[in-house]
């Protein structure tokens, strides 16, 4: 749990930390979209360059970013290997039964590897430089228009923010319950898969019932404070858009133009 880098906020004062979360969210999604459109070696080089530049801008050491990639490295390598071994096209380097290592396969493998890793790195940049609450604010902003389609936008946002707010509590409670059951002789992580799962029951059930109680208490508290679904709500938290946020989106347009130019001229 502690090794998970993606999703954690890392305090800092870089320019990325100060960008509006909406800009970052849009930029991130757009960038990932671009990754799937890129189709040329030089395009990928450019995108890699952009990725490393953005990581540099965040002021957070590259070591930490790569630590975030580590947990997924086997899945990535596995997919890439499949790609290399089973795709054919262009010059053939090696041929053995069903395995074919071809130029096309290798290049595609590299592209897939790049996409995977860049997606992780860019997502990590966003979550490391954006407070979770700011991300939910951004999501709420973009979901709001959907209220026309009777989608319960207020509820979704409140669910997100309350969940975030209670993550530390849940982690504390889990630790407490584990300690209490360990003190009664329970052992975790021992024995067969079945035994290990059975051992988790004395953890899950108490957590579950305390969460249910909490949900009821929270619902009462919300009602007392006047919460009614479908009623218009003002917002105390405000996102302020600045020129640097526009600039951020503009750089992405530049990036798109560059990639398109590269792909057109080659």
């Amino acid at each position, binding site marked *: 749990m*502690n090794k998970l880098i993606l999703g954690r906020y890392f305090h800092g004062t870089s320019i990325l930390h100060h960008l509006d979360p909406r800009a970052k969210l849009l930029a991130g999604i757009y960038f990932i979209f671009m990754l799937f459109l890129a189709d040329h070696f030089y395009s990928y080089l450019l995108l890699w360059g952009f990725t490393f530049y953005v990581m540099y801008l965040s002021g957070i050491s590259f070591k930490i970013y790569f630590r975030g990639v580590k947990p997924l490295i086997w899945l990535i390598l596995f997919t890439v290997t499949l790609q290399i071994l089973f795709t054919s096209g262009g010059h053939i380097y090696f041929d053995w039964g069903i395995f074919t290592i071809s130029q096309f396969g290798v290049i595609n493998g590299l592209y897939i590897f790049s996409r995977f890793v860049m997606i992780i790195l860019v997502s990590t940049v966003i979550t490391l430089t954006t407070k979770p609450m700011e991300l939910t604010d951004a999501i709420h902003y973009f979901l709001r228009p959907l209220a026309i389609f009777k989608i319960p936008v207020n509820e979704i946002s409140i669910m997100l923010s309350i969940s975030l707010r209670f993550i530390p509590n849940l982690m504390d*409670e889990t630790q407490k*319950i584990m300690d209490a059951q*360990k*003190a*009664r*002789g329970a052992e975790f992580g021992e024995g067969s898969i079945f035994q290990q799962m059975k051992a988790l029951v*004395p953890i899950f059930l*108490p957590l579950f019932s305390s969460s249910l109680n909490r949900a009821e208490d929270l619902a009462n508290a919300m009602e007392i404070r006047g919460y009614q679904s479908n009623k218009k709500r003002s917002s105390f938290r405000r996102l302020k858009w600045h020129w640097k946020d526009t600039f951020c989106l503009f750089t992405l347009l530049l990036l798109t133009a560059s990639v398109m130019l590269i792909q057109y001229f080659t």
Partner: protein
Amino acid sequence: MVMEIKLKHVSADYRVGPMRSPLILNNVDLQIKTGSLTAVVGHTGSGKSSLLKTMNGLLMPKEGNVYIGPYEINQKINKKELKKIRQVVGMVFQFPESQLFAETVEKDICFGPLNFGVSLSEAKKIASEVIELVGLDQSILSKSPHALSGGQKRRVAIAGILAMKPDILVLDEPGAGLDPEGKKEIMNLILRQNEEFNITTILVTHDMEDLARYMKDVIVMDKGKIVYHDSVRKLFENPKLVSDWNLDFPEARKLQLKIEQEFQIRFPSIALTEEELANSLIEVGLI
């Protein structure tokens, strides 16, 4: 069974992700005699709960050793020994009712004994004994824990620990969140266990009234160190210590101090309860 608790030069910290916290226990030396009843007090963050956790290996010492009777706890301990220690040291956490999970009270109480290799039939027998020890009726055994009141749930949780037949009982604020009656019952239960069965008992409390009324010995913790380990009375006789360590006086003592101030007199002995206060008022002739 001789179950002394000894801590020798114990320091400990917590691992939080890739970082280590500052020392939560700093070179602690402690000796607790078999069958004694000791309170642990101290401001929030002084290390009280952590001190308790070193006694059953939930918190491993970074330096130093913890001795529970014949057993030694340090980083090198093997699993079997650790498990034995957890049977010997019964630990009741704060709000222990939150750990109840089984379908019936009986099953929950049996959880501990079963983990330590006791047979099911033997465990059920024990459950039936301890449920009465904690002042509940046999009929509760077949009920679901969720159907019980807060006070009853707490007693079931304590029963679950007593069912392990520990030689040492460690409790973190056993009366927290209960109404005055419920608190009295729990405290009396703990005192009975200590007196009748000679169970070495350690309990953390914030409540100065409980401390004054029920406890004789107290350990005061301050910033990860043990700064006092002596009688409750001597502690309250020393106002400087009480304020230095961010503690408070029981009501009776506060009233006594107020009367001392108002009437410019000095009481020869301190009063920790209303009975003692009445006696001391008579003693100085104010009444």
